[in-house]
């Protein structure tokens, strides 16, 4: 028996188990959660051609900018606006309070027009400098507009020409208000009345500030997960994860004893590494992603099962413990490599063709395959070597043979 090796072995085991016990929860919580876990709304929009405006690259870039501005105004933590393909935009709104209203707002063209009595458009939203929601002296919810210097001139002209007449303010061709001009307004300021609530006035102000979309945008897909369901999914995943892990750990201990124990420690390290990798890649943890992790744990121990089975064969064939273990690792390597590469193909295809949660699943599955190969082969081997060098356990039985 060599105490040095044994001490080192125990130290490594203690460190891995300790780190696992202390950091697993904070680490898991530090990973960005998908909308299916934290609740929120996922929207897919598509720009479409209309007789007035055709979709081109320039228009698309402007659309993305404007939608980004609108989303940022919602004051959410970590929303996402992403262009997909030629004409699509994906928006993710985590923790949004009123998803229906947000969706409505995102897809609005928000073309503001000021028309004179003859219906001629004199000013548009482009002439605006700022728009703010306010409550005026008579307790009305209004949007206060401020024009750019160019716009202020046009507005002064419009009001001067139309004293005593009505001008009409339209949003997306729908009349917002049509007040009678009492006197010319030279300072470039105006208000829009007729908002039922201050929230409505705020939304209108956001739309006007962010500008009108240059092309029509349709909402193709929306997915909203309420906070209750998100929390429920999280709780249930935790239970499933715990039970699945315990089942695997007990199984490995029962069939492979000391080797199984070492494999279990390597499995803990694997889960830690997987979470760290996801954290570093800024990956999103989704519900299918958690399924992927639980599943990949099952696959991670497969490499160890292959090695240990090979070890048993070699040991029964008359090799010494150490030689049999070496042969187990060497011989099983090809098998593990070939079988994992083929599985990796499936994960890669999922990653490149899938979207949203499926992509999340592919990431965890793919990362899982690569990392589990490292932990199950290298780490297990390293630890078993130490243990064998320590010379404490001399019977093959203890290693499952």
């Amino acid at each position, binding site marked *: 028996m060599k105490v040095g090796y044994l001490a080192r072995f125990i130290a490594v085991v203690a460190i891995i188990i300790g780190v696992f016990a202390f950091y697993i929860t904070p680490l898991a919580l530090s990973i960005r959660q998908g909308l299916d876990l934290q609740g929120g709304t996922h929207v897919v929009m598509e720009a479409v051609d209309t007789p007035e405006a055709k979709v081109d690259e320039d228009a698309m870039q402007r659309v993305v900018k404007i939608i980004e501005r609108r989303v940022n105004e919602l004051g959410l933590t970590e929303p996402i606006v992403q262009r997909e393909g030629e004409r699509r935009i994906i928006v993710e709104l985590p923790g949004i309070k009123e998803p229906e209203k947000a969706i409505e707002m995102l897809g609005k063209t928000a073309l503001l027009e000021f028309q004179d009595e003859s219906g001629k458009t004199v000013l548009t939203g482009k002439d605006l400098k700022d728009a703010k929601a306010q409550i005026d002296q008579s307790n009305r919810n209004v949007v206060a507009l401020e024009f750019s210097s160019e716009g202020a001139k046009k507005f002064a002209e419009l009001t001067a020409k139309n004293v005593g007449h009505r001008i009409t303010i339209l949003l997306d061709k729908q009349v917002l208000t049509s007040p009678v001009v009492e006197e010319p307004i030279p300072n470039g300021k105006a208000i829009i009345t007729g908002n039922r609530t201050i929230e409505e006035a705020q939304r209108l102000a956001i739309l006007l500030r962010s500008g009108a979309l240059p092309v029509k945008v349709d909402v193709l897909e929306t997915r909203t997960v*309420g906070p209750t369901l998100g929390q429920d999914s999280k709780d249930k995943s935790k239970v499933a994860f715990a039970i699945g892990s315990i089942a695997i750990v007990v199984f490995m201990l029962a069939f492979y004893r000391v080797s199984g124990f070492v494999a279990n420690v390597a499995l803990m390290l694997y889960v830690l590494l997987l979470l760290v990798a996801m954290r570093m890649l800024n990956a999103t943890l989704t519900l299918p992603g958690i399924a992927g992790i639980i599943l990949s744990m099952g696959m991670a121990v497969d490499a160890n099962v292959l090695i240990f089975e090979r070890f048993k064969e070699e040991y029964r064939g008359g090799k010494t413990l150490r030689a049999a273990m070496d042969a187990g690792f060497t011989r099983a390597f090809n098998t593990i490599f070939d079988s994992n590469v083929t599985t990796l193909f499936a994960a890669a295809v999922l990653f490149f063709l899938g979207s949203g949660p499926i992509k999340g699943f592919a990431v965890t599955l793919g990362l899982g395959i690569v990392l589990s190969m490292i932990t199950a082969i290298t780490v297990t081997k390293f630890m078993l070597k130490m243990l064998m060098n320590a010379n404490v356990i001399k019977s093959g039985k203890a290693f499952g043979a």
Partner: protein
Amino acid sequence: MREKFNFIKLRYWWFALSALIMIPGLISIAVQGFNLGIDFTGGTLLDLKFARPVTVSEVRDVLKDFHLENSTIQLAATEHTEASPNVFIRTRVLTEEERRAVLAAAEKKLGPYDVLRIEKVGAVIGSELTREAIIALAIACALMIGYITLRFEFKFGVSAIIALLHDVIVVLGLFSLLRKEVDASFVAAILTIIGYSINDTIVIFDRIRENLKTHKKGESFQDLVNRSIWQTLTRSIYTVLTVLFATLALYLFGGETTKNFSLALLIGFTSGCYSSICNASPIWVTWKEFEERGRRTQRAKSVK
């Protein structure tokens, strides 16, 4: 040593068993198709939790005003009572305005509710998903055949893919028979099953490849493959068990949204383990023997 169970000898029984499982499924797919979710068909899904229990007919009344009374309405987890706070409604694609109107009417007539899930999938997106799923399957298969041909030989590749298609058909067939909903995550499940099944098959093929190197003249292909299956059998069983534990935990404790996903995996992994042992290797043996026979008759002819 006692005679070990011979997997290869029974191969035609395995093929028959596989056919027996696949045929009802294939018929079901042809006759009644799948219970496709809105991910494929397009549509709107409202999963709401009201403050008080509501009944299906109450919900249907609300939908009647919008001519949506033919929509699917389900109450969650109620086997004995007729009312439940949790309602699941599936309609055709509603426009943003329609959906808002329906929700407002529901709130007015049935009281306040919590949104569990609201989804709207346009018909365009649905048809794209179908196309993408088929492309994904084809690409994955092509890549795998390519890799196996490179590392092993073409015949191994084809045998593995046949076994894998068997697993896909078993899962598809059972989902069609059981009328279980097929959605986007089902596509992910199928690809995972493919990944697992091929992994399982490769392990056995790898052993066959290794044994072929030290192949003794007297041993037939049948015996060699049977020996290889036995050498890897413990591993095959242990691995499928650990993976099934994990999936079963997910199925039993993972919540409604991942139920169908884990069910597909449970069926697929079981089938994958079976087909690796009882289909993939026997197909390869049958092919090899057929080839040998051809070569022998060829030789016999040339001797004449």
